[in-house]
């Protein structure tokens, strides 16, 4: 891994710069012209019923959705985050959109609307088996035999295709869209859906529970190490649609899975809503790695348009010695409201959170994590890097809680913020609650300007200013980038540079 890292780093910083120069502002800003079927605009019980009917869901799931919807109508939108959000009209959104060619389910990739396939080609998603690592620059740094990544692609409200199903099936791994899982594996879905993030959890999670359209489902059986990385690509394409995906990952006793998630959306003037829920369940000795590169459309330089990203992600380390690692690179979205968390219930369980959040122009991010230590000898580690440029506001918000039973629990938190320019803001709001004398908690946070001397050094070596900033920022983020799977790390480094484009000089 270390040998690979060096390769990537040397190669990529240069490449990063080239990308910055060669690229438009937002690479994924195009919209595909695909005929869509929409549910009527707005949100009411009928829409919830319609979504459920479209997905041919069983009665219990419809009831759960309706219960969620009723609860949601009684809830108030949270306002505690350091976010300035224009009022959201929930009745002005489409809650369900589906590519027309999907009326009849495609039997194979050949039947999928070619326009849709081109969309994925543009996204650089390796949909076909031979496309391993295709579209990911820096692939030459990968081992010669290549690495397989199984992909589930979600387009607006519908999961389009899932690759490598057969090979995964041989290992006993279930990887499919959540709608398919509801049909094929109802017992698993019923057992775990809502068990980590209940439909009473918060405003956006409750909304998601009522209208979630699609998302991925993963089940790794006892003792199985998932033979390849699993990946989901989310794309919002249609105008005025919200995307409400729901992901559920279960790692049974002793299982291991690494899951990657990427997101993009077209460039539109209106704000689009994204309210997802991700639930992870790790049983005894299981390990889940969840990596995200979030690159939703951030809006233009004036702050017009962009995705409102309200996401509830939570892992339940239910079993003893289970382990969950969240890694996120948040560069997109006009607004990010997201706190991937770990409930460390099992004794000796571990949670980790590595995050890079970059905001530029008028972007706002309020993101962080919660580590709730319930079991004995539980450990958690938080490394958060916030970078703020332009007129952006970037907040780390986190909770570390040591319950009275969490004897010998351990936490280490580091959150650093970097400010580029005098009009942006960087904020840190950690909560630390220690209720056990043998638990140990350490928290440190720093905020500083991008170092002039480092920039000067780079400039004196012939780099231009943007190059120098990209290099220094990549160095600042290094600990988090190293926690990412290799192909994501490559993409993330480039994103870091692109996101900061225009922030200096």
């Amino acid at each position: 891994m270390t040998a690979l890292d060096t390769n990537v780093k040397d190669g990529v910083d240069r490449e990063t710069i080239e990308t910055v120069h060669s690229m438009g502002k937002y690479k994924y800003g195009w919209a595909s012209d695909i005929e869509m079927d929409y549910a009527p605009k707005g949100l009411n019980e009928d829409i919830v019923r319609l979504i459920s009917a479209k997905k041919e869901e069983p009665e219990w799931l419809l009831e759960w959705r309706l219960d969620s919807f009723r609860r949601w109508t009684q809830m108030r939108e949270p306002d505690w985050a350091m976010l300035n959000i224009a009022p959201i009209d929930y009745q002005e959104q489409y809650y369900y959109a589906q590519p027309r060619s999907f009326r009849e389910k495609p039997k194979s990739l050949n039947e999928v609307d070619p326009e849709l396939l081109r969309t994925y080609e543009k996204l650089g998603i390796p949909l076909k088996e031979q496309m391993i690592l295709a579209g990911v620059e820096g692939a030459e740094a990968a081992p010669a035999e290549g690495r397989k990544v199984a992909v589930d692609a979600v387009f607006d409200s519908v999961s389009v295709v899932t690759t490598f199903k057969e090979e995964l099936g041989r290992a006993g791994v279930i990887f499919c869209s959540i709608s398919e899982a509801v049909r094929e594996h109802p017992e698993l879905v019923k057992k775990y859906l809502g068990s980590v993030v209940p439909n009473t959890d918060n405003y956006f999670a409750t909304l998601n529970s009522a209208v979630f359209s699609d998302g991925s489902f993963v089940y790794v059986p006892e003792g199985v190490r998932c033979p390849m990385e699993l990946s989901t690509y989310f794309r919002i394409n249609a105008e005025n649609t919200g995307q409400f995906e729901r992901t559920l990952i279960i790692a049974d006793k002793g299982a291991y899975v690494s899951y990657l998630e990427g997101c993009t959306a077209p460039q539109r003037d209106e704000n689009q809503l994204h309210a997802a829920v991700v639930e992870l369940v790790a049983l005894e000795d299981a390990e889940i790695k969840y990596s995200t590169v979030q690159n939703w459309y951030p809006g233009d330089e004036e702050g017009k348009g962009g995705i409102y990203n309200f996401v509830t992600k939570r892992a339940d380390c239910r079993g003893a010695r289970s382990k969950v690692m969240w890694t996120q690179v948040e560069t997109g979205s006009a607004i990010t409201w997201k706190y991937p968390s770990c409930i460390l219930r099992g004794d000796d369980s571990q949670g980790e959170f590595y995050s890079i959040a970059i905001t530029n122009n008028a972007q706002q991010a309020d993101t962080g994590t919660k580590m709730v230590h319930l079991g004995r000898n539980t450990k958690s580690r938080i490394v958060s890097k916030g970078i703020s440029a332009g007129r952006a506001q970037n907040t780390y918000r986190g909770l570390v809680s040591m319950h009275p039973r969490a004897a010998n629990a351990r936490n280490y938190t580091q959150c650093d913020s970097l400010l580029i320019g005098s009009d942006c803001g960087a904020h840190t709001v950690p909560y630390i609650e220690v209720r056990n004398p043998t638990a140990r908690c350490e928290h440190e946070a720093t905020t500083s300007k991008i170092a002039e001397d480092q920039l000067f050094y780079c400039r004196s070596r012939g780099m231009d200013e943007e190059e120098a900033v990209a290099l220094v920022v990549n160095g600042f983020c290094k600990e988090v980038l190293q926690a990412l799977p290799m192909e994501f790390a490559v993409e993330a480094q480039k994103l870091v540079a692109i996101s900061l484009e225009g922030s200096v000089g």
Partner: protein
Amino acid sequence: MATDATRKAAEALLHALALPEGEAGWVRERRAAARTRLFEAGAPMRRDEYWRFTDPARLTAPLALAGAGDAPAQAAAAFAGIDAVRVRMVNGRLRPDLSDPMEQAGLAIAPLGAVLRQDISIAREIFGRLEAAGQEKVSRPLAILNTAAATEGLAMQAHGAVALPVLIAHDRIGEGASLVRHVVRVEAGASLTVLEAGVPTNSVMEVDVAPGGRFHHVRVQTGERAPAATHLFARIGEGAEFKTFTLTADGALTRNEVVIDLAGDHASGHVAGAVLGQGEAHADNTVFVTHSAEHGESRQVFKNVLAGRSRGIFQGKIFVRKGAQKTDGYQISQSVLLDEGAQFLAKPELEIYADDVKCSHGSTTGALDATALFYLRSRGVPKRVAEAMLVEAFVDEAVAEIADQGLQDRVRALVADWMAGRA
């Protein structure tokens, strides 16, 4: 935001307090404005974010002010051996008859009640003004209540290097609440030290430090059985220095808020504290440091030693305004938990709108270092003595924030006494 419930609670709070009579017009106006502000803010409630860790119910119970009485002089003992001008307050009433002569070179000092009946410019510039400015971002209703009704306390104006510290010793007898307000102005280049011993139920001190002035404050609160809320508001001018330290030991429920604004360039503000808790003690230190000018330097250093079922709370914030470049902000909060059942709850915040700054905070919690204890015990040091050595060393970083050596040693002695007397 006030709701019907918080507004009602605010009304009940005010209802219990008689409106002072015979005051100057500007004071009456300011009190009326404070009443309006209090209704707008509402009384604090448990669900308020700012009261997440401390239940305000016992602090917002309507105040029935204690009657006059003679209590034995106990509080001042906290500063035994310190050369100071001793001013006694009993049940929240100033007692010049039981105090040292207050006058000394470089200091104008008078009972607040007398000042508020006149039109004295320094009081007019400060009273209720610094408190109101300190309501930015988060409301502090208990301080507004104080502005609306407090009449007892001192007005001080230092216009030179004041030689002796002013020690305000507060004793109480019987039940009943006390409402105390001090207004302090340190003129350019002047310096003043104020010591406080004992805690009234609700006390507010407003301190305006003019350019180049120096203000030092040390407060000791020990074994207070009644709940208490204190507020210290300060505006620190260009090149001025402000330092405050509070030792809180075993208070039933103490909420200390320190709200300072580094308003002039090159201002310096240090806020420190030590908490020693046992039994059911609950000590909350809430600090809000605002950097409004360039080259400001601020420090927050808090140490908590928590035994029994005691709770230590630290909410600290560094707020750097846009344009407050070259700010250097530092904050550390650390806790040692000695027993099962003790808790430390912290929220150390940074909110920063200027880029050329250096701000950091750290927070740690844990038990006493087992290896250090083992080492000492293996050298024949008894367990209690070893614990005391480690605790005293731990607390010392905060104690060292006190400017004066003699005061430092006095506080060290209090910490040692507490460790020795701990159940």
